[in-house]
Structure formats: C-alpha cells, structure tokens
C-alpha cells in the first residue's frame, strides 16, 4: 500500500490537542521541517514527548503550539539550552512532566508491549519524582513485588496519538531503517497509535526485503510516508548530513529572547511557503552540499 504524501498532507492529519512523540535527540534527527509545517498550519495545544528534549520540541514550544511536554530533560548540547522550552517552564506557560531517559522509554516500552504498568528503580528519592507527582499524579504509582514484597515505583504506559520519526531509509508502505543509535524511536513507534515516517531516501519494498534485520519500523504501523531531503536541518542525520553549526548557533542566540525567537520564526518558518523555500532561503544546493555526510565517517 503506497502511503507517500507531501509533508503538508501528513501534518494536516494531526488535530490540535494531539499527543505527538518526536524522534529528535538534542541536535540529531529532530523533526524540524515537520515542526515548521505544524506552526504554519496553526495546529495548537499539542502534547509532545521524547526521552531527551531536542530542537524540534523547542521550535514547537517557541511557536506556541505546545501546552504539555513529557521529556527527560534536554539541551542543544554545547550550542546551548532548549531556550524556548526552559522559558515556557519558568513562566509556567506549558506543563512539563519531567522524567529521566529510562523512565520515559520504559513508559513507551510498556505502551508498546501492552504492559499495564512497568516497575522501575529510577526517580525514587529525587525531587524530579516529587515534582512529577504534582503535575502528573496519574503517571506513577507504587506496587509491591508479589515475589519479594519489596515496594517499587510503577510507571503508567504511554501511547501517543502519533509518532513522527525522521529516518534514513523507508519504502512506500512505511517499512523503515534507522542508521546509528535509535534511542527511544523504536519504542515511540510501537507505543503510538500510528506513525508518520519522514525519510531521506525512499526505496522500493524490494530493497527492504534484501536486509530485513534492519527494519525497525513496521509498515503496518505507518499512516503516512514523507520523502523530504534535509528535513531535519539544522540538526544532523547520521550517514546523510551533518548538523548546520552556524544555523544552530543563530537559532540558539535568537531563542534567548521572545523577540529574537519571534524574528527567527517570521523569517525561517512563517517567511517561507514550505520546506523547499526554506532550503532556498538557507542558500539552496550550494549551502546544503557543504553539509553532506562523509560516507565513512557518517557526518
């Protein structure tokens, strides 16, 4: 079944208020083109989740599309903080459920495996848990190990409405491969009601059948497949292109103030019709060619 559509068609399938799991990790495989299109379409009141906060979540929060975030903390690595997310938390303009990387991925895993809950050693004794119990009292509970009687923290399964995942290779059905570490992406996809795959390379299913051990996303879980080059820009896609350090610095500087962020959005999100215009604004083929990954190094 051919599920290939344009980015705007895929984004249009997401209603305001939906829970969207994002594939980004800091400055890599972040769903940037997706986030920009969400803002252009005026989708609002989203819940976004990911184990480690990334630039995609920061752009969505900066554009006012998010009312709740579930994440394990995050940054732009050495480029700086997730300024928009942090400011929104400090101002109380979004509700932030803060976890750790493992407690987030265990919530996705429980959702994926159909477990009613999952016990975990993390979070206990921390203010992170104390804060979480305030903002999301139904996300955690305590359970006694029926074998030893020991008390354990239990996490509620997480089942997002849709996972949006940036991959290197996919076929028209949505069967997809991810090169490099996959962090929480497999569990996000398996826990979500459906998945939107955004891929660098679109290949015939014939190619998938040649190396099926690599297929970490099953086609039947996928509702839309979008083939869009540099759709994670300015973040990196391993074996495809490197992060655009200059642009991330420009973003990090702009995001420090609401005014700066406003100007960034006006120019790079609202100032362009779509991702193709965005790429031209950056300098088109000439600029993007500089980011192409070395085939051996992968960056």
């Amino acid at each position: 079944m051919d599920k290939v559509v344009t980015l705007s068609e895929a984004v249009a399938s997401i209603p305001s208020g939906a829970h969207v799991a994002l594939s980004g990790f800091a400055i890599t495989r972040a769903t940037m083109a997706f986030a920009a299109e969400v803002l252009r379409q005026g989708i609002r009141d989203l819940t976004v989740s990911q184990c480690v906060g990334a630039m995609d979540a920061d752009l969505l929060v900066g554009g006012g599309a998010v009312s709740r975030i579930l994440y394990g903390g995050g940054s732009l690595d050495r480029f700086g903080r997730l300024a928009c997310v942090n400011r929104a938390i400090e101002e109380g303009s979004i509700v932030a459920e803060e976890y750790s990387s493992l407690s987030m991925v265990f919530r996705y895993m429980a959702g994926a495996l159909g477990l009613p809950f999952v016990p975990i050693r993390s979070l206990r004794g921390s203010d992170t848990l104390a804060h979480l119990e305030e903002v999301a009292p139904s996300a955690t509970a305590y359970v006694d190990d029926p074998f030893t009687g020991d008390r354990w923290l239990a996490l509620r399964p997480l089942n997002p409405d849709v996972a949006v995942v940036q991959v290197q290779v996919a076929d028209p059905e949505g069967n997809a491969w991810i090169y490099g570490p996959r962090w929480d992406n497999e569990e996000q996809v398996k826990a979500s009601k459906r998945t939107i795959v955004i891929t660098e390379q679109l290949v015939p299913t014939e190619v998938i059948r040649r190396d099926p051990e690599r297929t970490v996303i099953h086609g039947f879980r996928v509702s839309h497949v979008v083939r869009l080059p540099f759709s994670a820009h300015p973040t990196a896609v391993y074996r495809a292109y490197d992060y655009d350090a200059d642009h991330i610095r420009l973003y990090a500087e702009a995001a420090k103030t609401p005014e700066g962020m406003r100007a960034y959005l006006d120019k790079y999100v609202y100032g362009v019709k779509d991702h193709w215009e965005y790429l031209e604004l950056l300098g088109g083929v000439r600029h993007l060619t500089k980011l192409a990954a070395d085939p051996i190094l992968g960056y």
Partner: protein
Amino acid sequence: MSEDVAYTPFELMAVAGARELKNGEIVAVGLGLPVVATFLAKRTHAPDITIMFELGVIDPEPIHTGVGLADPRVWYRAKVLSSFVDMLGSVLHGGRVDVGFLGGLETDAYGNLNTTLLGDPKGKFRHFVGSGGANDIASSSRRTIIIIRHEERKLKEAVSFITSPGYIRGDGQRAQAGLTGGPSRVITDKAIFGFDPETKRMTLLSIHPGCALEDVLGTMGFKPIVPAHVPFTEPPTPEQVRIIREEIDPEGIYSG
C-alpha cells in the same frame, strides 16, 4: 619526574577520574571530562573497560571532538549502536554498570546532584538540562563518580533540587528509597572527596598539589569531614598529559 609536568586543573581532574576506574569495568558516561577520564583509563591501565553512552553507543573511537552525545562524531567506530532500552535498560537497570560518571550544576554534602534548576522550585527559578540519563545512572550504577568545578555555588550543604540522588540527607535515606550503590568520589579542580561510611557525609581525601586546605574549605558552601592528615593528590604523569593533549582532546575543548 611528574612534578616537572605542566598540566591544567582539568587535566588533573581527568587523570584523577581515570585512576578511579579498574580494568574490565563497565562505565556509563555523560559527555565532557568524564569521557576524557574514561578514554584515558582505557588507553592506559584499563584497556578492557566498556564505555557506554545512554542513547545506544558502546566503545566508540572518535577521531573528532563532538558537541554532545547526539553528535555522530562521538559514535564513530562504535562496537554497538542500539537504543536506550538496550543501554539504560538491559545494561544499567539490568545491574551491569560498575561506574556512573556524572557532572552537574551543583552537588552537596551527601553527593546529591542537581542538573534541573537554580532558584526556588516553587517560585522564581531558572531551568536547565534536567536529568537525561543522570538520574537513572545515579540510581542503578554500583558506584558513581562526580566531577564538578570547585566553587561555593556548586558545592552546597543541600542542593536546591535533587535530580539524581546521592545519599539524600544521609541516615540510610538512600536505602529507604530502594537504592543501593551511591557516590564514591567527588573530584573538583582543588581536591578529591569520598563519603564517610557511617554518616555518608562528604569527606576530604586529598588536596591537589599547589592548593592549601584553607583555600579548599574556604571556597565551598559547606564543611566536609576533614581527617587529621590529608595527603596531596598524585599529579598526572607526562604520558597521561600527552595522551589527553595529543589523542583524546587535541582541541582542548574539555580539558584545556
């Protein structure tokens, strides 16, 4: 001899961290000095160390310095590229991690770490990176080593927010939270600390060459336990400094 070697405070911290690692141990590390220390140990006395990054990377051999764990530069030549569930689940929560190597905004007399916020959690505060895998590593590693700048604002009697629990407020509170392990060392640019077996309060173990006891105590926000005799920290060897400068961090990003 080694007295002749010039080294930066960060190089000394990295070397002190490396000395804490035994051959064959499995080490969970965040980026920065912990990585420099772990790579140094692996290239010197502990070649069989297994290095694990939370997002799904084991034993990489980077040839370029990365900006963070998400940078493909730090994944280069890894033996395993997998996932959080594989690393933090089956390796860490599964009980295989010997050492967790952590940094933070601030730590305290009981080795609790704060990477979440500064200020008043209920009122005006500034929010930072949060936990990532830090809370998980602090909760499930056999022992944790903390590397942090020696400043009054970073070494407090009690952190303003416990992101990753050490011994909490002592008195067996860590065990009451269902946790074993805990911090074994705190390495700063002025000294090395351990924890009192009974009270779990931070205890001065050694002072770096060139630092005075008054200087060490006068620049921290609480009074650690100070034994009668406090030796000087063993300085880096010329070979250790060479490896850091030429092989591990040639651009001096972490240890310069």
